[in-house]
């Protein structure tokens, strides 16, 4: 108990002593993590809307719910031997149910009232060339047992490319900023150890354990990282609400996109974790020079 009081007191004295450096450290952690968390959230949103169009899938052929097994199999065989088709993935009733659950995770009542048998089976098709998409659609749309064929819209495809570029840019930016926040924390801790070098000298002399000397400084870096990450967490949550409003607008071209609380919480936890790591690692590096026995 005496130790805990000591650690808490020492940590906050030190944080106060270097107020400007502490704020700078917190702000850079916050800004870099906001960017990082933000881009993850946007990516997650887009991923939900475009899941089926990944890995070169350009069209999806939905069978009628009433289609017989033979009809389903016949379409599969035909697709496999079709020279315009590069590869296919078959989604049976259960796979369709899984997709459905993900798509309507926010509406448990709807999931409750749906059984796998009510959902159509489908083939996801990767054409040999994107230009063949329309040709394939026409070839299959009226076949026996086929309900409908949907194709990836050009808009969505273009959006995906743009998002990918933005994502790379932001991840690089966030990484650079995270690195600078690490340096700032290292520096803050160095200043703190320098300001207290006499105390540290005495502590080592009277036989304080290395951990005892280190903990207040580690805690200082940790607190900075976590406060910065806390701010970022708040910002990510705010962004989640903004995106939520935007994509639920009925006329939006992105109304198939969704953002879920699970995404926001997961990203928030990741952001907090990174913040804590940056703080702790930063102080560990900052401490190395002064604390050699």
């Amino acid at each position, binding site marked *: 108990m*005496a130790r805990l009081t000591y650690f808490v007191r020492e940590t906050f004295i030190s944080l106060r002593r270097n107020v400007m450096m502490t704020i700078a450290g917190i702000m850079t952690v916050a800004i870099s993590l906001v960017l990082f968390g933000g881009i993850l959230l946007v990516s997650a949103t887009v991923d939900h809307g475009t899941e089926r169009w990944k890995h070169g899938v350009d069209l999806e052929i939905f069978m009628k719910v009433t289609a017989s097994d033979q009809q389903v199999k016949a379409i599969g065989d035909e697709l496999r031997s079709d020279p315009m088709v590069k590869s296919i993935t078959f989604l049976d009733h259960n796979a369709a149910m899984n997709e459905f659950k993900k798509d309507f995770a926010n509406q448990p009542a709807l999931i409750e009232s749906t059984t796998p048998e009510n959902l159509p089976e489908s083939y996801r098709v990767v054409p040999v060339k994107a230009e063949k998409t329309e040709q394939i659609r026409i070839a299959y749309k009226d076949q026996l047992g086929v309900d409908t064929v949907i194709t990836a819209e050009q808009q969505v495809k273009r959006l995906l490319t743009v998002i990918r570029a933005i994502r790379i840019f932001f991840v690089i930016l966030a990484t650079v900023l995270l690195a600078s926040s690490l340096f700032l924390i290292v520096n803050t801790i160095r200043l703190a150890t320098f300001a207290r070098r006499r*105390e540290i*000298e*005495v502590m080592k*002399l*009277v*036989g*304080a*354990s290395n951990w*005892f000397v280190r903990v207040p400084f580690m805690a200082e870096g940790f607190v900075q990282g976590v406060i910065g990450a806390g701010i970022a967490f708040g910002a990510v949550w705010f962004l989640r609400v903004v995106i939520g409003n935007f994509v639920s607008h009925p006329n939006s071209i992105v109304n198939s996109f969704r953002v879920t609380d699970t995404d926001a919480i997961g990203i928030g936890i990741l952001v907090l974790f990174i913040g804590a790591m940056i703080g702790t690692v930063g102080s560990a590096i900052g401490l190395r020079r002064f604390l050699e026995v």
Partner: protein
Amino acid sequence: MIRFEDVTKVYKGDVVALRDLSLEIVKGEFVFLVGPSGSGKSTFLKLLLRDEVSTAGRVLVAGRDIGRLGAWKVPSLRRNIGCVFQDFKLLPTKTVYENVAFALEVIGRPKHIVRTQVPQILDLVGLSKKAENFPTELSGGEQQRVSIARAFVNRPLILLADEPTGNLDPATTVGIMRLLDRINRTGTTVVMATHDQRIVDAMRRRVLELDHGSLVRDQARGVYGVGT
């Protein structure tokens, strides 16, 4: 209590600080370590604190080879060795009481121990009335008493003093030596490095003299200059 076995210490650039030093100091002894600057006195003390590790030979404290001590065990060694310096090394932002209490707090002693031990030790060094003063408000002799109190508050087996009277006038020096003598009489082994001829002559204790890293004299009831 302390045992050096053929200890050699070579610093970077082939500077030989100690050469084949062998000696033994038993529990409860009071030993003066004398010799000119650069003779190896400081290295001797640093080896005992494991601030440095010997290049060859063994240094044993209470039967343990401290050169082979893991880094994490060094603190427990230092808890058994009190240390006093010429420049006191007191913390200027803490009061006399806090300076002494600090030594107990940072090794995790509980509050009730701190509350009983610190006043006791301040009484021993004669500074009970100055407990709430800051080091800058004290004379040099008083500051050194605080530093001795801090070194001794944890009741170490060994007290090392590196030129503890180097900054003090003769009258104050006598007081400090009386205090060290008192601490020695409680059974604590005291090793004191000094240049002060008068102290050594007056105390008539064992004298170890170093010169260029070698032991040139080991006299049971020695004086400063004789024998060289």
